[in-house]
């Protein structure tokens, strides 16, 4: 029992030392509630979405070329799916010191310039990214609401063609959300993509 406890503590410490996520949600897990500051200065909580079918939660940023390449596709996801009960919520977890282009002021200008009609939240403590086990930007977590809980239904990339969305032959997020809307099970639940690692604070 004692060894077991040491193992758990040891693993946690190793994970923290390596700057890796601590909890790492898997598909089917219920996520912990969070409340973060939006670019309009107001606080946004996951619990605010209690009337939607779910949320397309995206860990994103200003500076990553993948985020830039996917920016219009993220805006389009909200346009298509907000009215169908799956609005987009974006979170920037990059440390503003390591990546000055991701400071809160820069987030405000990005949201203004691109006319975001969805939240762009600052995860200053990086606790939300760590809880989710977000690693890349953009990194998508499709959440399905089940009563008061939000359950992870899909984790990964938006599609399989970062260069050109119109050439993507696998649209992972659209497929997952379409399945949830029509009451089917999500076929591809987890994908990997090349991307910019989240800029963790120095520990």
């Amino acid at each position, binding site marked *: 029992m004692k060894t077991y406890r040491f193992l758990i503590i040891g693993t946690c410490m190793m994970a923290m030392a390596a700057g890796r996520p601590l909890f790492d949600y898997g598909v089917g897990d219920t996520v912990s509630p969070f409340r973060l500051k939006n670019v309009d200065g107001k606080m946004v909580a996951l619990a605010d979405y209690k009337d939607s079918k779910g949320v397309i939660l995206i860990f994103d940023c200003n500076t990553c070329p993948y985020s830039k390449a996917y920016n219009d596709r993220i805006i389009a996801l909200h346009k298509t799916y907000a009215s169908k009960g799956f609005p987009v919520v974006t979170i920037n977890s990059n440390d503003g010191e390591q990546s000055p282009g991701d400071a809160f002021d820069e987030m405000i200008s990005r949201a203004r310039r691109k006319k975001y009609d969805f939240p762009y939240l600052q995860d200053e403590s990086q606790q939300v990214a760590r809880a989710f086990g977000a690693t890349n930007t953009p990194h998508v977590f499709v959440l399905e609401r089940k009563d008061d809980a939000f359950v992870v239904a899909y984790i990964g990339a938006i599609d*399989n*063609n*970062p260069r050109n969305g119109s050439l993507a032959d696998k649209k992972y997020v659209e497929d997952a959300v379409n399945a949830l809307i029509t009451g089917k099970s999500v076929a591809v639940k987890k994908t990997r*993509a090349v*991307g910019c*690692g989240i800029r963790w604070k120095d520990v």
Partner: protein
Amino acid sequence: MPPLKAAVIMEKILFISGVLCFSIQGFSQQAEIIKLADLQHLMEEESPPVHIINFWATWCAPCVKELPFFEKITAEKQPGVQVTLVSLDLDLDPNPEKVYRFIARKNIQSKVVLLDETDPNAWIIKIDSQWSGALPATILINHQTGKRRFIGKALEEGELERFLEGLQ
């Protein structure tokens, strides 16, 4: 100072001056464009026994910041150690010119290859099951001891040497 250590330092000085001569002449390598099978073959190659494989891109600031650590290993010319810098720039931009210019400008001496693969979801897991696909990422393989280490984050100064020792 023991004579052996002096000889090693002398050798290093000679090597560094050699590198400098090359750089003055504008020497730069032409990085090869490879497929996943080529990369897997390279990683499985038992000679030299120690492989340091770093996944990076020119646009990735933490990657660029840690390149000197790999260049240092290459410059040390340790027998049996091979550094390979795998650029993933082609994933976003099909034109390799930017990478070629970067190699010339920074005078990169380590072996650079450009991975040309589509559908990252299919190939990332074949490189390492622990890898999310986030950059930078480094894999250390020692075929002699059969040990392997995946590092899914940016390296700190001196960390690469410590990880390499751990593979002994």
